[in-house]
């Protein structure tokens, strides 16, 4: 007995209603009844279920519409499941999905059913993500596996909407294939999240990359979002020492932005919409510029670490690679070497963007300079958008990046004179910030700056004192006066840092410093103590005063740490020295006072 056309038409109407409710009407649901459309859709779906079940009962077991009806029933269960999950009836949703699975069990890979199958596994993945990521992963990997198999067999799926289309003449293969790809992209995206939740960051990043790749291939992306996401992903790779991959992602990001820029230039009508787009473009380009700068900074920093850890034997013993595809994989890892080979973007040629800077670990000053210059150019670019007057916080952060860049370059510079010059540049950048911003509103930035300035002046001091010691001739008064000046400057900035913790009303320091600031606070005190001992003078009175100040500061740290045990752990090394000094210095003071 064949099923009447009316039955199918009826089902089609109902299906269309459901889709409309779920995709359009649900957006207009009032705040007081956010699930209104979904509940309505659910009602219809329940009706459809009954109808289809009826039809199945009357249909012969080997009838031509058998698979189609099975698929339709599966689809209805799928939608019921999705709606339940959306309306937070998780266990009901689970039941529906289980029924769906049961229904389509024997026909999972058939063209009529495949899209439902993949969707269903995705939904199971979403369902279980909230309770047990491990189980979610299993379902999603099933979907992944099925997709690959289906693609390998090059079958054409049937779109779900076509399934419900009563008198269809030709199937929408294009739509079906596009939906197939969309579902798979979501599978990958969900897997990326699951791996993230399970703390498998590298695996997650691989899936994020694949998702980006697919968006690119399908032409289904917003260029700004895509560029920003690629740049963000590059930050992750950098941290894993994957500088090659990081650079590639940054290059891709720049490539896409350039493409978008061309698109914008094509727009002739300059209206508000255009302005908004241009603004966003400039904003996000500045952000990508910052990522490029971070790349340079981190490459120098990691190169430095590498050199320090393998002082003499670097070429022989260091197996560290800046290319993730060469990463040594342990047998327990869930990642395969294969996984790491395809972290580039097919379909776009970004070599010209990659050519600007190296992705190899740095060894020489010459190479370091090149990276430095490149990164510096990017910070300048970023500051075109993030100006002091408009977006001061970001501007300051970029300046801090610039000072970090100088610091990283310093390491590769052998000549102390040049080192001092680089420090001086840092000082200028940092002091400029203090001049320009209100420390009340930018307190946490000013604190960083003061601390950095304290340290930088101390670094210059070290260089100058080294120079004096190494020279044979008697130090000139000017040289000594310079030394003292540096000591004072360093103390000044560390003091500013410390005083910023004073209570605004009483002017006194609190008994306890907030935990996240405790370590630098104590270190600052410690540095001041040591600095007081570095004044060069023959005047006994001055020496006495300095030594007393030194003692006072060592004592402060010592007392604070005795009072607050946890703090002691933070600055264990310094604490030890403070205790020594508190014992030694009184002797010196006594001698100085006596004479």
């Amino acid at each position, binding site marked *: 007995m064949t099923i009447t056309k009316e039955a199918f038409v009826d089902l089609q109407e109902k299906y269309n209603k459901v889709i409309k409710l779920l995709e359009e009407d649900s957006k207009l649901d009032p705040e007081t009844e956010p699930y209104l459309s979904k509940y309505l859709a659910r009602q219809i779906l329940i009706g459809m279920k009954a109808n289809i079940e009826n039809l199945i009962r009357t249909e012969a077991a080997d009838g031509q519409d058998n698979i189609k009806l099975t698929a339709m029933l599966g689809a209805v269960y799928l939608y019921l499941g999705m709606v339940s999950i959306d309306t937070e009836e998780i266990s009901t949703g689970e039941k529906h999905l289980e029924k769906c699975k049961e229904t389509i069990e024997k026909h999972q890979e058939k063209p009529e059913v495949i899209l439902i199958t993949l969707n269903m596994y995705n939904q199971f993945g979403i369902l279980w993500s*909230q*309770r047990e990521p491990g189980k979610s992963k299993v379902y999603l990997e099933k979907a992944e596996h099925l997709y690959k198999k289906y693609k390998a067999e090059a079958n054409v799926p049937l779109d779900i909407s076509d399934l419900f289309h009563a008198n269809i003449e030709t199937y929408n293969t294009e739509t079906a294939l596009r939906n197939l790809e969309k579902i798979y992209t*979501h599978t990958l995206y969900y897997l990326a999240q699951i791996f993230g939740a399970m703390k498998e960051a590298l695996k997650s990043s691989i899936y994020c990359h694949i998702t980006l790749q697919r968006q690119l291939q399908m032409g289904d992306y917003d260029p700004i979002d895509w560029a920003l996401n690629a740049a963000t992903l590059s930050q992750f790779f950098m941290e894993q020492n994957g500088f090659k991959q990081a650079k590639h992602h940054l290059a891709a990001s720049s490539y896409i932005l350039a493409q978008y820029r061309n698109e914008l230039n094509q727009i002739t009508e300059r209206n508000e919409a255009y302005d908004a787009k241009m603004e966003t473009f400039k904003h996000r380009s500045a952000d990508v510029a910052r990522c490029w700068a971070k790349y340079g900074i981190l490459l120098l920093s990691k190169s430095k670490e590498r050199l320090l850890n393998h002082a003499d034997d670097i070429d022989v013993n260091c197996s560290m690679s800046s290319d993730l595809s060469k990463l040594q994989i342990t047998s327990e890892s869930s990642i395969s070497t294969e996984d790491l080979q395809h972290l580039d973007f097919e379909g776009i040629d970004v070599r010209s963007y990659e050519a600007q800077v190296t992705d190899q670990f740095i060894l020489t000053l010459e190479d370091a300079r090149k990276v430095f210059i490149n990164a510096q150019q990017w910070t300048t670019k970023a500051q075109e958008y993030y100006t002091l007057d408009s977006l001061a916080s970001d501007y300051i952060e970029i300046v801090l990046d610039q000072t970090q860049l100088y610091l990283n370059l310093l390491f590769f510079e052998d000549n102390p004179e040049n080192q001092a010059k680089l420090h001086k540049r840092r000082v200028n950048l940092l002091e400029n910030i203090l001049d320009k911003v209100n420390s009340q509103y930018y307190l946490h930035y000013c604190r*960083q700056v003061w601390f950095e300035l304290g340290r930088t002046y101390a670094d210059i001091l070290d260089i100058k004192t080294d120079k004096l010691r190494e020279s044979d001739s008697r130090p000139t008064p000017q040289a000594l006066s310079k030394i003292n000046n540096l000591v004072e400057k360093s103390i000044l900035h560390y003091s500013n840092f410390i005083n910023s913790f004073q209570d605004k009303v009483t002017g006194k320091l609190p008994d306890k410093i907030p935990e996240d600031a405790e370590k630098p606070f104590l270190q600052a005190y410690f540095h001041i103590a040591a600095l007081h001992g570095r004044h060069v003078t023959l005047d006994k009175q001055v020496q006495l005063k300095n030594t007393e100040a030194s003692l006072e500061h060592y004592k402060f740290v010592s007392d604070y740490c005795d009072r607050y045990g946890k703090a002691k752990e933070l600055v264990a090394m310094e604490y030890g*020295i403070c205790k020594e000094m508190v014992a030694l210095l009184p002797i010196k003071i006594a001698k100085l006072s006596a004479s």
Partner: protein
Amino acid sequence: MISEDTEVVNNVENVRVFMRIRPETENQDQTAITSDKNIITLTKSSTAKTFKFCKIFDHTSSQIDLYRSIAVPIVAKVVTVTYLEIYNEEIRDLLSETPKKKLTVHEKPGLGVYVKDLLGFTVDSLEGVTEMLCKGNKNRATGSTKLNDTSSRSHAIFTILVESKNKTNNKTTFGKLNLVDLAGSERVNRTLATGDRLKEAGKINLSLSVLGNVISALVDGKPTHIPYRNSNFTRLLQDSLGGNSLLVLEEQKETKRKRKKSKTLINNEEFEKIEMEKGVLENKIFVIQKKILVGGENLFEKAQQQMELIEDTAKELEHLDSTHQLLQDILPFKAQEKSFVEEHQVSLQEEEGTG
């Protein structure tokens, strides 16, 4: 609950003392409390003590009563309110005629963070404040149905700015109060009520529009690496959130002399400091020695003094030397500690910084 001396009130010009009695709870020490206008009487086992205040508010009084009674007479103030909503990282003015228009966040180094073109309304009463609040609420984005989609979060910030001129000392003070309505709070309550254990971390975001969030979550927790992901929300509340978060004060593990073979970098810094002290002392000695050679009056006396100084410094050098030795002994020990800490840190980073 019971406040201080009444004498204080009369002596200090700018201080007024008021008392508000909270509703009675379990009165463990059986003290009877009665109040009348501005005198309160405490009676305990037939001993009565009285205290006098400027005014006493009993347990039926409300915050508004207090405010009206106490604050209003003292200060003349201008109260301005602003009300904005952050929805999908877009900022809208809820009090404007065109609430759909997107506004931008700006900063000026002297002013801090502000929203450009945000309207401020002056109100002269508490009723005015609540009126503004209601008006703004009407303009809030209607509840998105994409409840699974974490990208559609709407926060609202209602700000009350008070500029008050104190009549007694002619000083103007500014105060700012931010009332924040965090998005998703209702949803959380509902979930808690139903008992479903919703692990936010494990919950999958359906929309690819938040791929960026997923990727950012992978990057190490340090905020330095992805600065542009600071949401407008945190940016606007920057000054209210306090200046105590020190973003980057990374340990500078570098040594000043990279050729040094030693791997215990932190210890080396301290070493060098001690060496510096030594160096300076040596220098002083050297300078002094030179002075002895150059002529001058009372050279002998000076020589005597200087001999003593040299002795002292020599002793100190000894002392420092022994400290130096002590530190050197500790050094290998510290090296062990350091590598242990480093290992520990690496494994912590792997745990925390991912996902």
